[in-house]
């Protein structure tokens, strides 16, 4: 059930009003029922995947917890250090096996469902075999909730918090409807207290959440969907029948499309969750104003980056082979720190590419971004020296602007790989960009004039909001609006809602870009 359907709006109205009308102690249970109903609407059979992963994580986390308790009990009264470490090691080994078992089940499920046909396809093409693709349908949101399950399990294993005792409360954490389909990947510790707590109806908070959600609707229905009308044909055909400038403009618009689509979804999810009194994680922080690729990934899909940093990057860095590399290069401080980091980054970026989809174009996109980040890591000492030598130049506004434009250009070029979902189409898109034919471009603009006018005007608002938020020294725009006179506020709300209804694009479907991941 997509957020932008009438069905969802009715569903949310029921959940929202029910949440504040029922006795407070049942609020979390009400949310659980609502979340399961919401998920079942995507496909009834998909609920078994969701409940299966929840059961595995819950069971394994409880197992780890009981092993930790037994470990504590076994250590009581033991004074010999060797004996203590033996007991500890024995329990740690057991816990590790439980985590490994859970990871095999969860990652295994993801691999089977998401990557089987990709693997089969490549085997077919390497060995020139007949197609034996399987009819596997991926449940929507699988990658997201499997990652959330894994994060929770590893945190419990690392002893960051205790495993949740109540199965149903844990089920709510994973299945909570604002984040189950495409994130954010919420940290259990950060969200659980509010998720299971009781909430009074707070007028100011509800209005603030509703405003945030309305802005998300504008981003998706007006900006993303109007862009979709213009670029879909160009991107999906690999630029066939279009000249270079039209293709380049389409790829630039794709950058804004995916941003408006994904961050719009997040605004809706965060806003609706706020209305219920449950703050969930932010996933975007004006990413296109980043000055380098590493910063961009700290501001784009923030929770995915944090997930890979916490559970993959640091795990690799702490691994025995990275320690061995460090030892090998102990004479050079630079190599001892850089080589393991580069290795960990290479693994992370390969996985991020693969996470986005079972296609070579996504893997290439991951390698492309990873390549820039690795290059930045390797050249870090050089940058440091230059910054110290020319502080005025590097600190200038011109240089800041140049770096923002440079980063946006790199990101946009990366979309040549990402947008099509197939390397052959990406190549065709790249080739097509070289054939510039001005009259064809004018025709393209003319054919899409209506959409381009709406896109242009609405992008001004989007970019202004990003600049405003990026400054960080001003109160949130929502708070500024809340302080205005009644007629100003109402006019703004009125204009926003009217614009959503009147300028939205139709016939482009209700799905969001990240549903497929």
């Amino acid at each position, binding site marked *: 059930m997509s957020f932008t359907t009438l069905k969802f709006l009715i569903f949310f109205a029921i959940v929202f009003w029910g949440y504040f009308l029922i006795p407070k102690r049942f609020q979390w249970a009400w949310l659980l029922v609502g979340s399961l109903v919401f998920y079942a609407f995507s496909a009834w059979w998909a609920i078994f995947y969701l409940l299966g992963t929840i059961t595995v994580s819950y069971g394994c986390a409880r197992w780890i917890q009981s092993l930790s308790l037994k470990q504590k009990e076994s250590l009581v009264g033991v004074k010999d250090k060797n004996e203590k470490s033996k007991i500890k090691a024995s329990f740690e080994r057991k816990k590790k096996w439980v985590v490994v078992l859970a990871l095999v089940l969860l990652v295994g499920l993801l691999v089977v469902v998401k990557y089987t046909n990709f693997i089969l396809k490549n085997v077919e093409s390497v060995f020139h075999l007949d197609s034996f693709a399987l009819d596997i349908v991926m449940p929507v949101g699988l990658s997201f909730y499997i990652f959330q399950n894994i994060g929770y399990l590893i945190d419990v294993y690392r002893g960051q918090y205790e495993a949740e005792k109540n199965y149903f409360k844990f089920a709510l954490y994973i299945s909570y409807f604002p984040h189950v389909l495409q994130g954010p990947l919420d940290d259990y510790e950060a969200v659980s207290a509010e998720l299971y707590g009781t909430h009074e109806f707070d007028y100011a908070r509800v209005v603030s959440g509703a405003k945030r959600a309305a802005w998300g609707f504008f981003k998706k229905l007006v900006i993303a969907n109007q862009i979709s009308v213009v670029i879909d044909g160009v991107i999906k055909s690999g630029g066939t029948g279009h000249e270079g400038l039209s293709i380049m403009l389409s790829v630039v618009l794709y950058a804004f499309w995916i941003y408006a689509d994904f961050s719009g979804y997040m605004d809706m999810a965060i806003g609706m969750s706020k209305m219920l009194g449950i703050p969930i994680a932010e996933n975007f922080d004006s990413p296109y104003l980043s000055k380098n690729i590493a910063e961009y990934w700290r501001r784009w899909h923030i929770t995915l980056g944090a997930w890979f940093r916490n559970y993959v990057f640091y795990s690799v860095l702490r691994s025995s082979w990275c320690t061995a590399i460090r030892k090998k290069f102990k004479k050079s401080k630079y190599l001892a720190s850089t080589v393991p980091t580069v290795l960990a980054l290479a693994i992370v970026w390969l996985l991020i590419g693969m996470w986005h989809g079972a296609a070579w174009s996504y893997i290439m996109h991951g390698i492309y971004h990873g390549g820039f980040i690795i290059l930045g890591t390797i050249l870090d000492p050089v940058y440091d020296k230059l910054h110290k030598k020319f502080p005025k130049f590097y600190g200038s506004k011109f240089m800041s602007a140049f770096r923002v434009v440079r980063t946006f250009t790199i990101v946009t070029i990366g979309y040549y790989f990402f947008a099509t979902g197939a390397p052959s189409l990406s190549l065709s898109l790249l080739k097509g960009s070289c054939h510039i034919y001005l009259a064809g471009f004018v025709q393209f603009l003319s054919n899409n004039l*209506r959409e381009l006018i709406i896109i242009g005007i609405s992008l001004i608002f989007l970019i202004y909001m990003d600049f405003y938020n990026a400054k960080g020294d001003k109160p949130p725009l929502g708070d500024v609006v809340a302080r205005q006179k009644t007629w100003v506020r109402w006019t703004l709300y*009125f204009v926003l809602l009217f614009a959503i209804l009147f300028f939205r694009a*139709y016939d482009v479907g209700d799905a969001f870009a990240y549903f497929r991941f």
Partner: protein
Amino acid sequence: MKKFLLKSLALIVSVGILFYGVTFALILPSKGQAFANNYQKGFVYQYRALERAEGKKIITIGASNVAFNTDTALMREITGVPAYNLGIHGGMGYHYILETALKFVDEGDTVIYPFWHFSEDDYGMGLIWLSLEGEQDLIFDFIKEHPVKALSTVGQFGLKKVYASILGNKLDTDSLDMACYRASCFDAETGNYIYERGTPIVSWDAMHATKLAFSPANFDSAFVSTLSEFISACRAKGAEVYFTFHSIMSGSLVNTAEELAEVRSIAEQTFSVEFLNDASEVTYPFEYYYNSPTHLNTAGMKRYTEAVANALVPYLTK
């Protein structure tokens, strides 16, 4: 809570009133239509002609191939029965065409469905609204029949009209820039497509780049149930339904003759409907086409109509 409920309701209702007020003020007036010469108006001409029809008739239904391929005047001349078309654009939606056609099917009528090689199983609301501008009775009928669909999509028309009014008649043909896509290409009285089409205006290569394919896989449950329901409803009214193939350009079909025969046999068995023609009878060379491998030129239209009408005659005299 009460304060929030009342304020949000007031906001939603006032925005809704303004939105629908503006939209209906743009779509309802019959004067000052922005899309009066739009190709989509052809559908309204066909609809109105069917409204005026009396007695037994032949109705050919489907997509744009119906308009481009079937000459209703010639059909009438050959069969001696008044003939009408209902179909100008596949994008209007398969359901919409069938449910609209059913309104006009009466006892003794003959319905011809040029078997389309795929099903477009919904409502193409953009095109439907474009055709309905200024047609107040049709607009209200559609809202009555499909209130959610109508009210949730009518907004797209408002924006189109504002755009057309500000920037001139840019959207007159809604991206279909060819001269053959105009309301004036139709006879406003009969809804027959009368635009004179000579030699093909699209190159042989471009025409052959579009491949046609009939496949047993197209008989999905949605398609089968929708078409079966339509056929049953026609028969319940005392009308008979026949299939034929839409015109096929030589070399544009990916299927072999055996595959095509299999598709025909599946269609006949699934729907218990006879085909008037074999595909080979309506397969014509490039020079009979105009701008696509299913759109015939005037000479092609004559050949196709003769083939279908002559095949139909024995059934009419039964």
